[in-house]
């Protein structure tokens, strides 16, 4: 079964992951089987300035299980997997106990599935001939595939329905409108979210499908998004992938190997929230934006214009005026014509921490293609996911700067948006309902 899983993923998953796949295929053949049982260490309490988390070669074993429990939720700084199934849900019950029970049921199923198990014991056929199987079965026999399941709570969850108003973290606020937003309410918001990432799309889809099924009557899917290729690296061991514009994306991303940077920019600190909202310490805020790219228009654009819009060269990914991908951008440097080498409207300039008072985010986005639209154009783009310590102090000023002047705006359109508070990781024996309903 493992061989089937590998070969299918190699067939389907060749795009966008060549560098990573190369590591594993090169290291394995039969060796992949040996790596399968390796768990990636996620002892990543970033506030402790100790040894960086272990995210080296074994972390890239595509079949391995990622530990579900730890100081922080998996699926944030753990190595970005190749595939995504993201779902936003609304709570449809008004019964607080039903919601609490679902969070407990979800914890149990999520922990099992991230370990590569069925969603419930004996889920495939154990219920006998007359019961509907408790697990839907399509991931049976597949390895854990690096599955992570990350939960988040939207601002609307903390209204008056469940008595959670006092638990609402102060930093969890609806995002303000930005210039150029074309937000579709059917792709925005949500009381809850589940981010399922894996190196096998079938494993990610299976996870969401089974969690949604457990939730019928308590929650209902509001919107969902599939992503087929990661656009960011969250570890220095990962190569920088390319987005649908054909450019390397996330070169300057925060990485798991920067514990101080994570503590400063990603994890909610112990004193960030007080009183009933203190449960958020060790968590992180997630901003999700569905960014549709005007692919056909972009593809007709000259290389010079494309590079000027991004601010990097297309082949190497180096900042304009430099030669290597990881060279520091020199925003003062002039080109031969006397104009700035990196144009004043270039994306890298406007999004760079040096222009934003040191703001950084942990980006974890995915390329998406949802077929074509009604006029035959590719409905494709970037499903932007970013984790941060405080959206109002990080994403909001950054997006304001970009929305105002970014040359990229001519080629993109934000049509979905949501923000979620992702709680800290679970200790042994804990479940998601506890901190919220304590």
């Amino acid at each position, binding site marked *: 079964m493992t061989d089937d899983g590998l070969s299918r993923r190699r067939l389907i998953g060749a795009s966008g992951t060549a560098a990573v796949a190369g590591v594993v295929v090169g290291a394995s053949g039969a060796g992949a089987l040996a790596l399968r049982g390796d768990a990636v260490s996620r002892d990543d309490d970033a506030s402790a300035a100790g040894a960086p988390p272990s995210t080296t070669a074994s972390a890239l074993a595509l079949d391995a299980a990622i530990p579900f429990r730890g100081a922080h939720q998996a699926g944030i700084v753990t190595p970005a997997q190749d595939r995504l199934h993201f779902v936003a849900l609304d709570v*449809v019950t008004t019964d607080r106990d039903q919601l609490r029970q679902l969070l407990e049921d979800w914890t149990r199923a999520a922990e099992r599935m991230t370990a590569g198990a069925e969603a419930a014991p004996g889920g495939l056929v154990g*219920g*006998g*001939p*007359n*019961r*509907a199987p408790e697990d839907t079965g399509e991931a049976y026999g597949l390895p854990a595939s690096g599955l992570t399941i990350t939960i988040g709570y939207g601002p609307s969850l903390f209204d008056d329905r469940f008595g959670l108003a006092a638990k609402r973290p102060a930093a969890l606020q609806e995002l303000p409108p930005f210039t150029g937003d074309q937000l579709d309410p059917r792709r925005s918001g949500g009381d809850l979210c589940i981010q399922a990432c894996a190196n096998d799309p079938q494993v990610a889809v299976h996870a969401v499908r089974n969690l949604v*099924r457990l939730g*019928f*009557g*308590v929650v*209902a899917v509001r919107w969902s998004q599939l992503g087929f290729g990661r656009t960011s690296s969250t570890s220095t061991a990962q190569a920088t992938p390319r987005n649908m514009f054909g450019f390397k994306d996330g070169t300057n991303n925060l990485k798991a190997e920067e514990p101080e940077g994570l503590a400063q920019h990603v994890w909610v600190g112990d004193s960030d929230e007080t009183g009933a909202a203190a449960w958020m310490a060790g968590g992180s805020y997630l901003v999700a934006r569905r960014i549709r790219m005007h692919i056909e228009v972009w593809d007709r654009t000259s290389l010079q214009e494309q590079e000027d819009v991004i601010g990097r060269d297309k082949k190497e990914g180096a900042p304009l005026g430099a030669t290597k991908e990881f060279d520091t951008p020199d925003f003062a440097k002039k080109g031969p014509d006397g104009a700035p080498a990196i144009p004043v409207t270039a994306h890298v300039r406007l999004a760079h921490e040096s222009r934003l008072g040191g703001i950084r985010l942990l980006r974890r986005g995915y390329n998406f293609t949802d077929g074509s639209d009604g006029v035959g154009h590719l409905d494709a783009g970037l499903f932007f996911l970013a984790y941060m310590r405080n959206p109002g102090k990080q994403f909001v000023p950054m997006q304001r700067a970009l929305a105002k002047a970014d040359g990229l705006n001519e080629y993109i359109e934000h049509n979905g948006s949501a923000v979620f508070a992702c709680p800290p990781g679970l200790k042994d024996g804990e479940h998601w309902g506890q901190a919220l309903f304590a």
Partner: protein
Amino acid sequence: MPRPALRRSTRVAVPVALSLAAALALTGCADKPAATGGSTATGAGGPITVNATDTACELSATTAKAGTVTFQVTNSGSKVNEFYLYAEGDRIVSEVENITPGLSRELKVEITEPGTFTTSCKPGMVGDGIRGTFTVTGTAAKGSADSKVAKSIADYKAFVASEADEFVTGTKEFVAAVKAGDVARAKSLYAQARHPWEAIEPVAESFGDLDPRIDGREDVIADGMAFTGYHRLEKDLWKDGLQKDSGAIADQLLADVTEIAARSKTVEPTALSIANGAKALLDEVATGKITGEEERYSHTDLWDFDGNLEGSRQALAVLRPVITERDPALQKALDARFTELSSLLAKHKAGADYKAYTALTDADLKELTVSLDALSEQVSKAPGVVEAK
């Protein structure tokens, strides 16, 4: 509408437990008539009269002895009326529908177990009706688990028989209107004539070509069949106008409906097949009604929705004693979810009629779908409870 894949999956799930359950059913059915026939005389004092007005539901007696109880229901109001006798959980023991003003109709009910029942007149055929408590006295054999199952099966057979009779009656009226060329009347009768069929479809759709002949949609032509039955007449009435052969189609429909009704009464259900049927009816809603596919010309899909939902609810209502005993939490969830979806569906009533499917908004459809998913997940647990093997 025949759904081969659905039927196949149901059949696959059944055989292992079928033989045992069927044996049980036969035992139960052999016992029952003897127990009933021997137990009691008719309730004293002859028929209980029910005077149904637009605002009242007056019974000459509110108690009776177990056995055959006869209600003589007279509609002395101005609205069409109905009379129901419910057991616990609003399970319909028996009912008489479509009592027009001035009309009197008799309802005979076999009540084998004493207990508290509910009577209801429904002037205008809407809402919960004007309710009263009805007490049945006497003695009945204490139900062991098996006798509870046997009673469920007997109750379900009675329900199927009652719906089958309604189906024939309604079809007769509809066919008469078609043959008289009265398009307006035929259209007004169409949806409600089909309603009993939608409530017992899983029982009836297994008889060869009868189901597609009665209820097939235009795409049956792809299977080499003629397009006949209700949906052919639906197309004539709403789209093409009555055709030269519409009368012949109507005659054949009545013959087919009469046959399928008779054959439905011969089906020997098991607790498992009843529970699976309850699920299959909700599957019908999910795949055919909530999508607006079934009634593509008349857009009366919400009537079919109501019929499927009611059929599912009644199937599980007869299993209530079994499910309550074995999984009380499931029974509680079923009650809550059926109530929720029924009330959401009722929001789309316009007087005694349902709105056209095309009048529903996307938000309406999502609301119904969310509730249907919640209900269906619970109903899907019932087969494993009644046949826990």
